[in-house]
């Protein structure tokens, strides 16, 4: 009795260990099995396998992971896409731009959503393998607490505020009130965009500055905290916070589209190499007029098709 129990235990243990070993191997290889197991909690194990395509009808499953700023759009578009192609299953997960890029680069996800160019996060070799699909544009604006009387800030003034050289609103033409910065964490894609295109310089985390990752919290804190300044995507702007002009230019979709307002970024959907059939069909659907003119606008993004200017990785703008 006891012997056989020990026998069973050893068997079980060796199985468990063997399974572990295998798991590690596939993990190192960046194979599909790994993503399958990690996602089993959400149900769809076949997701990472990528579309097993049939000849007649589009079928298969894809996994899109990454940027939480882009997630609502991809999520909504994927639901419509799945209604049209019932055999396709698309899973959309958040996790942040870094996660999206890592997973698509490692092969665990089919599509990696990102707020920033892959070259800014991954090393050059890994970024080279990824194919960029720009599906939308997000504009950003500096916002202040409604009680702050300042309407417009120049680039220099913004830099001075976010680097801590100006700490009182009276120095930039406002009331005698302390400036409270509501920033994003230094790893955030939103902050990277704001620093790159609005400030033109990297800033340090100042003592006393608040850092929040979620746009909802930033919005809440800016609207409630006296003297607060932060920055939000255009879709989050409302009358609870006051939107500042940048160098006198108003933050509107038209100004972003015609290139007069510079603080905006592409929303990227990366694939590793050329996408497979299902992913390609989905990405085509994302940039089709059906999504661009409806869901993209509805959710507060700017359609990539409307942009009259183009910008490359180094920030060079072409008409």
């Amino acid at each position, binding site marked *: 009795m006891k012997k056989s129990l020990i026998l069973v235990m050893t068997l079980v*243990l060796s199985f468990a260990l063997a399974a572990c070993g295998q798991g590690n191997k596939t993990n190192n290889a960046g194979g599909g099995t790994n993503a399958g197991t990690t996602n089993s909690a959400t149900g769809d194990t076949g997701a990472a396998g990528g579309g097993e395509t049939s000849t007649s009808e589009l079928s298969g499953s894809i996994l899109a992971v990454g940027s939480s700023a882009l997630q609502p759009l991809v999520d909504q578009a994927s639901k419509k896409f799945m209604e049209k192609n019932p055999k396709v299953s698309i899973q959309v997960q*958040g996790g942040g731009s*870094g996660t999206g890029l*890592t997973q698509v680069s490692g092969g665990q996800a089919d599509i990696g959503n990102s707020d920033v160019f892959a070259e800014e996060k991954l090393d050059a070799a890994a970024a080279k393998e990824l194919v960029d699909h720009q599906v939308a544009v997000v504009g950003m604006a500096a916002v202040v607490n409604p009680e702050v009387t300042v309407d417009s800030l120049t680039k220099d003034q913004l830099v001075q505020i976010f680097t801590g050289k100006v700490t009182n609103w009276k120095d930039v033409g406002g009331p005698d009130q302390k400036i409270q910065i509501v920033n994003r964490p230094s790893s955030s894609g939103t902050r990277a965009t704001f620093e790159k295109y609005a400030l033109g310089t*990297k800033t340090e*985390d100042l*003592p006393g500055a*608040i850092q929040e990752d979620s746009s909802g919290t930033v919005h*809440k*804190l800016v609207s409630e905290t006296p003297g607060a300044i932060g920055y939000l995507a255009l879709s989050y702007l409302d009358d609870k916070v006051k939107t500042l002009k940048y160098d006198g230019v108003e933050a509107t979709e038209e100004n972003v589209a015609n290139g007069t307002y510079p603080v905006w970024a592409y929303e990227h959907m990366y694939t590793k190499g050329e996408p497979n059939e299902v992913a390609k069909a989905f990405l085509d659907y994302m940039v089709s007029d059906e999504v661009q003119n409806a869901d993209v606008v509805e959710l507060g993004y700017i359609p990539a098709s409307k942009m009259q200017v183009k910008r490359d990785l180094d920030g060079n703008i072409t008409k």
Partner: protein
Amino acid sequence: MARSRENRKIKQHIMEEWTGKVFTSLCIVLLVVTIFSLVYFVATKGFSSFIKDGISIGEIFGGTQWKPEGEPPFYGALPFIIGSFSTSIMAAIIAAPLSICAALFMVEIMPKIGRKYLQPAIELLAGIPSVVYGFVGLSVIVPFYRDIFPGQGLGIAAGATVLSIMILPTMTSIATDALAALPPGLKEGSYALGATRWQTLARIVIPTTLPSLMTGVVLGMARAFGEALAVQMVIGNAPHIPRSLFESASTLTSAITLSMGNTVMGSPQNNVLWTLALILMLMTFVFVFIVRCLERRANR
């Protein structure tokens, strides 16, 4: 005929025994494997920032500058360590007297009302998701502190307040169990000698149950130490050692949750976050160790 039936019965029972044993052993093996692989995973990831990226241990534990994206990068995690300790210790200081008094009330003073109404109410607190605590903290406690004290309201004080409510149920239920397990003879003896209720509580009940009460406090602190979401929402997350309790600060957990998704796996920025996770895990071990020691004292 009769014998074979008996045999069958015995066989059936043996089978039952076996199924039970195999099932429980399987569960235990699975648990042990999970725990060990978790520890292994966090440890290898956490140490890679020392080994692969060459960050010195002294910098992480002693450095006060946190600029993982900077040129050159700084990885001083001391502000987070201080933030984590100060919030959880403060939360325990706020919650411990409350929970011990609540337990005394429920067990010694008014057992009927306490058991019937107070205990379910406190246990209900344990079921509220932490994001709700965070949101309530951000909407109620932060504006309250902002109006009363200088500063923005966010900070260690707000974090500790939210955490103290969160850990109240853990502490109270452990304190209640400890008080209820006290042999009645002790109290009766004290009363028989003419001691008042206050004297009995202060000189007999609390001193004898102190190790168990402390266990509750330490477990509560461990919970506070590991809580991420609620704290992240109200603490402000500036990676600096704050000059006041009402200035934006960070904890280990908030630093991890804030940046983990935004950094790329395997990069130094990401590895150093895993090191923070490793510190958190080691701290949990320390807490468990303290609880073990206290339990041993309580059992003696």
